[in-house]
């Protein structure tokens, strides 16, 4: 049994023509939820894309290990079947693909589909085309719903709270809590997660373990996620740069 569910070592990644990640490290144990903060455009989504194996994201150096085995060269669908699930930041709306039909392909349990749809207030959206005309909050809820049905071991959430109003943040974060087994004490949880957040509002409702700040294509800090968030809320990312230059680089990783 590998020590970590996910282990990323010295990862260098190009997105398009640009090198975005420059020697990134992160290790995630079973049951741990990690939060990645960082200014826009620093490569948070690129990291998630590299783990999932999305197109136009190219690993040029380093490795991504899932249960001790490299994911490099493995297609997106196979990574999903290995137990990695993603909640996209900007999921597409697809004509003619009814939401219910997609959910049935992901998971054939009608009872489970119904239960999760009701919990996420998407009961009336099941017969509609995927994400077509959904509000910002509904699109995000729909991502969480699919993750529930997919039942992955590692959940990657890319900005699950962006564009979601305050009422729906409660609905979505309640579902994420259930998805990530946050009602259990740390140590008893089985499912792991990497959550990307720019604004961080969702952290008011979640009980996460480790926080990181992404700067210059690397993860820094590696401390308690709420502590980092409260500092960022107070001073913005300016102070992260200050702190880093004062203390030298502190490698990022699990506890």
């Amino acid at each position: 049994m590998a020590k970590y569910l996910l282990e990323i070592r010295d990862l260098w990644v190009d997105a398009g023509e640009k090198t975005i990640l420059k020697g990134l490290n992160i290790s995630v144990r079973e049951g741990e939820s990690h939060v990645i903060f960082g200014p826009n455009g620093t490569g948070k989504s690129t990291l998630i894309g590299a783990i999932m194996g999305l197109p136009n994201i190219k690993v040029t150096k380093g490795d991504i290990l899932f249960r001790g085995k490299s994911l490099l060269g493995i297609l997106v669908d196979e990574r999903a079947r290995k137990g990695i699930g993603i909640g996209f930041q900007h999921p597409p709306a697809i004509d003619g693909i009814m939401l219910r039909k997609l959910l049935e392909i992901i998971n054939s349990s009608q009872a489970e589909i119904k239960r999760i749809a009701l919990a996420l207030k998407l009961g009336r959206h099941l017969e509609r085309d995927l994400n077509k005309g959904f509000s910002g909050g509904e699109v995000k809820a729909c991502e969480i719903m699919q993750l529930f049905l997919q039942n992955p071991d590692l959940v990657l959430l890319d900005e699950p709270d962006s564009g979601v109003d305050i009422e729906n943040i409660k609905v979505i974060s309640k579902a994420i809590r259930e998805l990530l087994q946050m009602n259990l004490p740390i140590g008893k949880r089985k499912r792991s997660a990497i959550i990307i957040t720019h604004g961080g509002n969702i952290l008011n409702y979640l009980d996460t373990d480790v926080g990181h700040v992404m700067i210059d294509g690397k993860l820094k800090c590696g401390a308690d996620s709420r502590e980092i968030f409260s500092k960022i809320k107070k001073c913005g990312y300016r102070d992260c740069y200050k702190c880093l230059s004062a203390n030298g680089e502190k490698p990022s990783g699990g506890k």
Partner: protein
Amino acid sequence: MVKSPAEGNDMDGKLNLVGYDSPKTQSSGSFLVVDDGIAEMQSYSDKLEILPLAKSLEKEQWLKEHLGPVPKKVLGFFVRALPDAKIEKPLQACFFMKEKKAQVIHNVFVAEKNSQVHLISGCTDDLVEGKHTGISLFFVRENASVSVTRIHHWSPDASVFSKSSVFVGKNAVFDSNYIVINSPKKEQAHSIARVDDGGAVGFNSIIFSRENSDFTISDKILLEGKNARAEIISRAISDGGRILTKTYMAGKGKDTRGHLECDGILLNEKGSIHAIPELEAVNPKTNLSHEAGIGRISETELSYLMARGIDEAKAKSLIVKGFLDAKINRIPPNLQKAIDELVGKISIQA
């Protein structure tokens, strides 16, 4: 030519593929042409007349100016839905080329005042290098409503020419679905509709063009009367074939409205899709719009579905099926299997 099991000699199987399969209780009438003869002709409704066109031409002199010159032994149907007839079950018709290499069909379909009627018409063959010509006239009288679904399923080396003229009367409705499952070497399909006051026309087409196939579809709608409306939706999929879609709408009458949409997906680099949407406003009180989009299967959509654990071939077929399903929702349920067959083929090739 070596035939695959799916393209075997089974005539019933061939007819099934183009919608001529319902038990007789599921249709209001049937009309089957095999090569150059009428093999079946029956109406199951006293409100629906079905005759050989050759016979009715003697009586219906007015048709001559519309039909122009026709062969002495003109082949095809004359169908008339009587005034006020509400015929729920569709009339099924099929034109099959079994042995003879050329088939010329003339059909006339009349929906009298206040009638409602549906037609499912299939064209198919079981030979090498057949030539099919189909000329159709539709007269949709005042306040009548007609839906027509035409399905084409050809051998790869067939050539096909079809021309339909539609006359849509006051407050009448004409809806057409044109579905090409197996495209021939060459097909040209022309349709023109003239729409009177308050009338409405919908032309929907699904064209699947395989390699070495050259397909032209041309849809024209002339909104002549006041308040006439129209919609053209064209969905083209090239799996190596060339597709030209020409769509034209003219707003001639006052307060006319029309919208046309032509979209295409190129499954590989061998084929091409050329869309020419045209709008012409003659009356200042017309309102016409169009949108067109052609491209490959969206990588974003594909990787989104694959991220749910769906393999590439299945994800592609879901997207293509979605592309076909979107908005073309008047396809009769019993034709769903024709669409499914089409999508099934795509998933194999993906």
